[in-house]
């Protein structure tokens, strides 16, 4: 059970980032790339400054910066949002590998980075954050004026615009916010869990976060719950793999594949077909006819 609280935060944070962006109407396939930037920046920042907290901050900023590119392309230049996200992932893949090589001279892992302190239960502060932030997000979305506007903008941006809501700038803030969350999620991986950056990070967790968003019906509590569920599946897989000596039996691959297959199964079984926010993925044209 402790393992779940350890491994869930990256997924939960990234999933919340996905919810924020998509509720405002911007599809965010680039979560994987944002997490990757966040993970690397956090490790680099922590190593350079000697403090894991600075690392976390760097991760959040890196996430926001990459999200800014997505926002610029999708909102200002009306690019297809899926393509923009995919392009971001491609750039993240290449750029971070390149930086890992040129900054740390390695193609595998970075040097060890200072990690976040753990309390007597063995948890970092992020583990508790993963429990609290979804609730705060939910309250914000349903009980504040800003949250109401975000919901409106994701469903019917023109209606909101006629009432004076600034659609594009609100969407941009939400995309930046999703970048911060995803970046923090990535940072958790390098500075909170592993203690260094691994060249494969986040190893598909950005996409699992997307699946969590869909599974959780685009709500903060739902997505967080789904993320916890996937993290539990992952923890279970590790446990089974270890206890069944899968490595010796060369069966490791089967266990590693399990969480992904399970995620797919869950999606395939159909989660009641709740639809995404109506304006999700549709570029907003201020003077559209």
């Amino acid at each position, binding site marked *: 059970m402790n393992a779940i609280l350890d491994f869930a935060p990256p997924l939960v944070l990234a999933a919340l980032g996905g919810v924020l962006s998509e509720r405002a109407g911007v599809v965010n396939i680039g979560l994987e790339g944002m997490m990757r930037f966040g993970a690397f920046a956090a490790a680099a920042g922590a190593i350079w400054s000697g403090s894991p907290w600075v690392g976390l901050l760097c991760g959040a900023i890196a996430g926001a910066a990459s999200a800014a590119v997505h926002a610029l392309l999708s909102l200002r230049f009306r690019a297809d949002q899926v393509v923009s996200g995919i392009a971001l992932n491609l750039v993240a893949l290449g750029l971070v590998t390149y930086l890992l090589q040129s900054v740390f001279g390695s193609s595998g892992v970075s040097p060890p980075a200072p990690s976040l302190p753990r309390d007597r239960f063995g948890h970092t502060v992020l583990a508790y954050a993963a429990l609290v932030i979804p609730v705060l997000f939910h309250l914000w979305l349903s*009980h*504040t*004026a800003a*949250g*109401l*506007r975000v*919901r*409106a903008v994701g*469903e*019917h941006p*023109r*209606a*909101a*615009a*006629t*009432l*004076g*809501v600034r659609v594009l700038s609100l969407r941009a803030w939400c995309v930046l916010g999703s970048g911060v969350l995803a970046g923090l999620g990535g940072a958790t991986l390098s500075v909170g869990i592993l203690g260094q950056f691994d060249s494969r990070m986040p190893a598909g967790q950005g996409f699992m976060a997307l699946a969590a968003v869909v599974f959780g019906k685009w709500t903060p509590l739902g997505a967080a719950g789904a993320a916890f569920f996937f993290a539990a599946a992952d923890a279970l897989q590790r446990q089974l793999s270890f206890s069944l000596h899968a490595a010796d039996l060369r069966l490791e691959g089967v266990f590693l594949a399990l969480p992904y297959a399970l995620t797919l199964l869950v999606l395939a079984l159909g989660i009641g077909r709740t639809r995404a926010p*109506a304006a999700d993925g549709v570029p907003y044209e201020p*003077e559209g*006819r």
Partner: protein
Amino acid sequence: MKALELSAIVKRFGGLAAVDGVSLAVAPGEVLALVGENGAGKSTLISVACGLYQADSGSVRAFDRELPLGDPRAAIDAGLGVVYQHFMLVGPLTVWENVVLGREPRRFGALDAARARREVAEAAQRFGLSLEVDARIETLGVGAQQRVEIVKQLWRGARVLILADPTAVLSPREANELGKTVRALAADGRAVIFISHKLREVLAVADRIAVLRRGKLVQVTPRTETSAAQLAEAVMGRPLGAEPDAAAGLGVPATERLTLGLSSRDDHGNANANLSLLEARDLACLSDRGRPGLRGLSFDIRRGEVLGVAGVDGNGQSELAEALTGLRRATGSLRLGGADGFARTPASARKAGVVHLPEDRHRRALCLPLSVEENLALGRQRDAPYARGALIDRDGRRAKAHELVRDYDVRPPDPLARAGDLSGGNQQKLVAARELAGGAPPRLVVAVQPTRGLDLGASRRVHDALRDARKQGAAVLIISLDLDELRAVSDRILVLFDGSQAGIAAPDASDEELGRLMLGTATSTAHA
């Protein structure tokens, strides 16, 4: 002091001036009607006035203060409120959330939901508009949604209320209610601008009537100094005799048309009383929300007959069209020419000779990114002359496209033009060309709102095409929310209420009779 004053407004889209130097003013407590054909510039003018569009030149003043152009917030703050034809309501949110959006009452940083609910309920009550503040918009009917839109503006303190084509989707009685509300608002000291193309309504409610034609202001007259016929001529710019359909479409009453010697339907003795081509018995199906869409609907259409289908929006019209064209499963029996099972899939319906002019042509009839030529081949891509075996017959397809584009006056007449670039009217002509003339003559034509949003020329072409299909012996079903359109084209009118037949009326039935059928409060003695 004028409540709203528009001076020399010009707005262009591309090279076309949608609004060309229009100046208009309205005083507090006055109801001004704005009439004109589709495309005359009414909606554009309103969008400029309320800041949604930015005018290329001209100025907007509210209560003697000049408003910054292109700023909806400033317009709202100055007291302008617009109720659009396509409602600007967010479906999954509740009534009160929609009303307060953008100006939310707050308490300690959070939404003050209690106060919001209370204020919205009070605003509604003050004008006698019944509303359930906690209902989600997507569960409400059209009339209720319109009330929400009005309360939305009133709660914001709108002193100038602009209603864009409000009665297009209302039943006659609801339209009446709205008229009373408008007069109540005027009596309360607010200015009301009322856009419509229904001259009768406008004459009943407005103090003055402004006529727009092709972006220019043609006349502004007090109600007492004009008539439906005079307004119709001003709208069209031509004497009524040349345009019987248009006169009907503008709501010039049948009696007036007859006095003017106009007959809007030609002889259609083709309808062979003994030959029912389409027989529907006990059609039943669910609608999208899982609630009943059609409940035991039965009717016949004969060869060479046009059956109009009237009814308040949401009473089964969409489901009926879908059931006939293979897009929705329905129980009961449907026979075309004696054979049933033709409407199992869209492909089988098409093969049986059913063609469909759908309501939402962008989604259902056209692949917008593809060319005109490709769209004309859609549905027949494996048949001659569009194909030879498994391969596309490029020459045949091109030649056929030229022919259809010419016959139906699609502009620009370029088979390679992108369908999405065509205007709405030309897109609809494209769809009509494909469906009615793209292959073998159809046996059943299902047309839904075929002239919505179309200008006069395009409407006329589409109606002519439907009449041609009828002449060739097809059964034609035309579903429309526009009673005058139905009157102009149909041989009989079936009224839908709550998914089944409320009655059959003759085209010259009165508004009252049709209205009673549409609201289910009368039974007609005529039967299918």
